[in-house]
């Protein structure tokens, strides 16, 4: 007999109980999920849609039970892709053995609205009451046994950071089959549900908590019209200082480590091409990208700390008005902020946006934010453009140009979002903007740790797949076809002169042929064929540009590649003999990198998040055209001044 699972909730293992976690955002659902499953959670995707799926096995006395963490939902009357998933999973009732409703005890009245809706599904149900400790601290109370009697289902109170509640929950999870099915379906019509919730609250001896005085005091400073704004900018400044300054020594160690490994490979592998392949393509390629790992890890530490404390919601509140100029909302700010490290987490962060239109517009804008992969390219090119000594007082020219590039990226992202918000289907109804402000809390280290671990794992997967593949292909293109001694003699090259041989191989390689073939496209921007090879290779990932130019430069002068790069001249065409890296060409390259969509991983994530290649293609198309036009503009304008 074959089973066909149509809905999104196909069981992973037959015969194993399967329980869905349902709750509103901020109800403590993810903390509970992490507490139950730890690092054994698996991430996947719901078929056809753009929402990530988390599930993990929980060990109970009766064997493993699969727990699925459904996206946060305020209502089963869905208005966001996340909420649609929750409604769809609950509709697919026969694939679930039970529903675990996670309800914030400090806001029980609203929670009961969701309880009423979920009970309509008629599945075995249990309620987990979170933040009971906070309810009591703020002078509220609830009798969970009376609540259980009023609802007709089991109610388990849990206290953050205490194992007791989680252990009790584990016991309950052992046998979802024995859970009570709701004895009656509560009403969901507004008047009726209000009356029902009122009577349930009364039977549960519920008294609402006082407003959190600690949160009130903090908000009166952190959201103050003047101090709040100052603190916001100071936080953002510290955010970037930490990412770039604290990460620097860690990145230095990684660089040194890989340089050392490369040296070992070079000295110990006797076969010339093999040692070059291992040292340049494998070790150099992976190392050149792994240096970003400290930055990405730090970014996620900081973002999940800000999120865990509750400040990230405040930042979105403060930025909402500015984001609305681009037709977006405050939460899109968080997505664009994450894109400053990498567009991939930025695009994934758009999941919190309830409006599909906003999501697409933010996704189209995210690749324009200056991600950390652009940083090594900018550092290399800005370093060639102006000397570090140039500047006025504390303002260095290099730093100013870097800042300008970040600003240009952000302004372009806002413009792109504004544009796409206007052109994407006008038909959809205007969704309301709302955002709950969680109380300030101490972040859970486990949640921070899991978030950092997940993102680092995703990044390492990218390094070991896309980037490694590109560097290997590139190395092959740069070194093939292999020249025999007779070829070299015929061309007048001394086969014993290693430098001349590599230079000749490079100039007549497959990569050189491709670089020359695209010359008509990039000639107006001042790029020569070697720059073209770099630009084409960076289509896979931006940071590859640096290692490509490195491979090319060390081929022409292995002793001093930096010098070789700076003094590189056009070796053919109308500009023969003139230097390649003139100010207009460097400016054009910089601006090209501000706009160009050179990241296969980002295109892949867009495909995954939207469910179609259409948006990946649109992003690639409009950004390539923008990159070329803006680079031409930069080349022309800078050309007027030098």
């Amino acid at each position, binding site marked *: 007999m074959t089973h066909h699972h149509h809905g999104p909730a196909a069981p992973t293992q037959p015969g194993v109980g399967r329980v869905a976690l349902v709750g509103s955002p901020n109800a403590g659902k993810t903390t509970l999920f992490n507490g139950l499953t730890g690092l054994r959670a698996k991430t996947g995707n719901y078929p056809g849609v753009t929402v990530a799926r988390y599930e993990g096995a929980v060990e109970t006395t009766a064997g493993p039970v699969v727990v699925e963490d459904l996206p946060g939902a*305020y*209502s*089963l*009357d*869905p*208005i966001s892709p996340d909420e*649609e998933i929750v*409604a*769809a999973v*609950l*509709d697919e009732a026969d694939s679930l053995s039970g529903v675990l409703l996670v309800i914030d005890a*400090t*806001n*029980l*009245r*609203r929670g009961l*609205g*969701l309880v009423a*809706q979920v009970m*309509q*599904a008629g599945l075995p149900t249990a309620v987990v009451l979170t933040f009971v400790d906070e309810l009591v601290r703020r002078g*509220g109370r609830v009798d969970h046994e009376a609540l259980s009697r009023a609802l007709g289902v089991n109610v388990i109170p849990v206290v953050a950071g205490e194992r007791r509640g989680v252990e009790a929950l584990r016991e309950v999870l052992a046998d979802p089959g024995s859970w009570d099915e709701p004895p009656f379906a509560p009403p*969901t*019509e*507004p*008047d009726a549900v*209000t009356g029902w919730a009122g009577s349930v609250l009364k039977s549960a001896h519920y008294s*609402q*908590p006082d*407003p959190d005085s600690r*949160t009130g005091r903090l*908000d009166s400073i952190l*959201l103050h*019209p*003047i101090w*709040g*704004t100052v603190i916001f900018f100071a936080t953002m400044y510290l955010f970037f200082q930490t990412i770039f300054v604290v990460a620097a020594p860690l990145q230095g160690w990684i660089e040194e480590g890989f340089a050392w490994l490369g040296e070992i490979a070079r000295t110990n592998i006797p076969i010339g091409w093999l040692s070059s392949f291992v040292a340049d393509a494998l070790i150099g390629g992976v190392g050149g990208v792994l240096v970003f790992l400290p930055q990405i890890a730090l970014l996620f530490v900081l973002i999940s700390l800000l999120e865990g404390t509750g400040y990230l919601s405040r930042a979105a*509140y*403060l930025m*909402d*008005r*500015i984001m*609305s100029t681009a037709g977006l909302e*405050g939460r899109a700010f968080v997505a664009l902020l994450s894109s400053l490290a990498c567009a991939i987490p930025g695009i994934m962060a758009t999941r919190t946006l309830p409006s599909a239109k906003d999501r697409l517009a933010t996704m189209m804008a995210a690749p324009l934010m200056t991600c950390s992969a652009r940083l090594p390219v900018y550092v290399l090119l800005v370093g060639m453009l102006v000397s570090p000594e140039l500047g006025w007082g504390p303002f260095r020219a290099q730093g100013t140009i870097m800042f300008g590039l970040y600003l240009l990226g952000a302004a372009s992202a806002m413009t792109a979002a504004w544009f796409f918000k206007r052109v994407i289907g006008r038909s959809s*109804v*205007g*969704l*309301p*903007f*709302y*955002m*709950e*402000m969680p109380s300030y809390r101490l972040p859970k280290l486990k949640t921070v740790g899991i978030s950092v671990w997940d993102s680092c794992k995703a990044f390492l997967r990218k390094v070991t797949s896309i980037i490694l593949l590109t560097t290997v292909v590139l190395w092959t293109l740069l070194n093939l076809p292999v020249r025999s001694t007779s070829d070299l003699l015929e061309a007048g090259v001394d086969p014993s002169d290693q430098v001349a041989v590599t230079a000749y191989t490079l100039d007549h390689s497959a990569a050189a042929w491709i670089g020359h073939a695209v010359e008509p496209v990039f000639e107006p921007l001042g790029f020569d064929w070697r720059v073209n090879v770099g630009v084409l290779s960076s289509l896979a990932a931006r940071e590859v540009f640096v290692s490509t130019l490195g491979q090319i430069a060390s081929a022409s002068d292995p002793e001093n590649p930096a010098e070789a790069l700076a003094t590189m001249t056009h070796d053919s065409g109308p500009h023969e003999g003139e230097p390649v890296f003139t100010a207009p060409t460097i400016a054009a390259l910089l601006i090209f990198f501000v706009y160009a969509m050179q990241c296969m991983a980002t295109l892949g994530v867009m495909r995954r998040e939207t469910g179609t290649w259409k948006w990946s293609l649109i992003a690639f198309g409009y950004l390539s055209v923008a990159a070329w036009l803006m680079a031409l503009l930069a080349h022309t304008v800078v050309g007027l001044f030098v």
Partner: protein
Amino acid sequence: MTLAERFASRRCITAQALAQATQALDALPAGEASCIVGFDTDDVVTRRLFDLGFVPGEPVERLRRAPLGDPLMFRVGGIEIVLRRAEAHRILVAA
């Protein structure tokens, strides 16, 4: 019938159903509290506001507004929630 379809028939209380002096929530001065009466019309937006806790009969307090004038922050049903003026305008409170 899916769950979502089952809820689609729900109705919110609107101004027509009421004969009471009201004002829009966005007109409530900062730091002041009032009681939610209903909504200007009944649609997907007001139904969501209802699900978020803007329930007729509940007290609501306007806490503050963002430095640039929008959005506004309210306290309702034990939570603090941010709405833009446009959405707050659709919620009616006792004048």
